[in-house]
């Protein structure tokens, strides 16, 4: 009885086929993920609400058409903005803030909860400058939050944020609770206006 052999498939061109597919995927796909500064826009309001904010509780940041930065009327470089913002937020002017370590300057903000940053950008200012300013502001907030987080929980705010994506539900829940707590200590209050001339 003759053995029936199935004819073997020639696998020599397998590599070519695989290469073809590989190159297709290399060309049509991207590996990079995007990074960015996250912001929450304020919901649209039909009629402006009159709110009364003391002038000392507002840090006025303005960008003009030549991409120059002014804080409370004084021209400042972008690198100095972070420390100015920290000093403003962390001031604790009326001693009601027990975790602030600022100078308790009566002329600056009362409490981080009340401190508002007002960012006015000219229509002709560049987006690069705007992002640089936003970045400095985020850096200021993150530094303060890191400090409080280290004090309260012994871990930095960044670690807490990373734990939000952890696999264990209990850890996730804890991280979420801590994050909200720290955000409530230094809430982001940034008002943005675009200046039209």
């Amino acid at each position, binding site marked *: 009885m003759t053995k029936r052999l199935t004819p073997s498939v020639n*696998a020599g061109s397998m590599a070519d*086929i695989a290469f073809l597919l590989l190159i297709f995927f290399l060309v049509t796909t991207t590996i990079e993920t995007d990074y960015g500064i996250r912001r929450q826009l304020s919901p649209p309001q039909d009629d402006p609400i009159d709110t009364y904010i003391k002038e000392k509780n507002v840090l006025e940041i303005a960008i003009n058409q030549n991409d120059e930065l002014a804080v409370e009327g004084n021209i400042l470089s972008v690198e100095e903005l972070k420390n100015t913002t920290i000093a403003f937020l962390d001031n604790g002017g009326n001693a009601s803030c027990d975790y602030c370590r600022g100078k308790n300057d009566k002329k600056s903000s009362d409490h981080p909860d009340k401190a508002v940053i007002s960012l006015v950008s000219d229509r002709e200012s560049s987006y690069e400058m705007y992002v640089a300013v936003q970045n400095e502001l985020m850096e200021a907030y993150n530094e303060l939050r890191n400090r409080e987080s280290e004090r309260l929980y012994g871990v930095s705010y960044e670690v807490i944020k990373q734990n939000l994506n952890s696999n264990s539900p209990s850890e996730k829940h804890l991280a979420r609770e801590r994050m909200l707590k720290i955000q409530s200590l230094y809430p982001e209050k940034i008002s943005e206006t675009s200046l039209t001339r």
Partner: protein
Amino acid sequence: MAKLKNRKKINTPEISTASLPDIVFMLLFFFMVATVMRKNTLMIENRLPSANQVEKLDTKNLIMNVYVGRPSSRYRNVGSEARIQLNDKFAEVKDIKAFIMAERASKTESLRPFLITSLKIDKEIRMGLVGDIKKELKEVNALKINYTTRLKDGSNSNK
């Protein structure tokens, strides 16, 4: 004997290519898993500004991309003014609302609250246009936005 030995060519041993398909397939699967399909071809110049206090945008299917920049050299026929690009097409500021609505409609109801608008804006763009875009986004209640940036060196970001 000596003659025979001399005549024999010294062959370099052949490398077996039998495992080549396996290696290539391995690479192929790696790329298939680790990458995502490129969605848009850019028709504008898009040099993003850099920042270091950034967050990762990892849920690709929840992101709506709005590109802004000057038309790149191939598309100079539309002028050199800054333009918005939505889904492979040049658009006007007023088209953003329709774009957001269409993107929302294409997602399931449970995902809609988590949609993020990623603003990929060239760093040379004036803030006036950016402000107009933000105003449009506010009006359709697309409040979660992300200024997409490049990662600056020496970052202490939360990656």
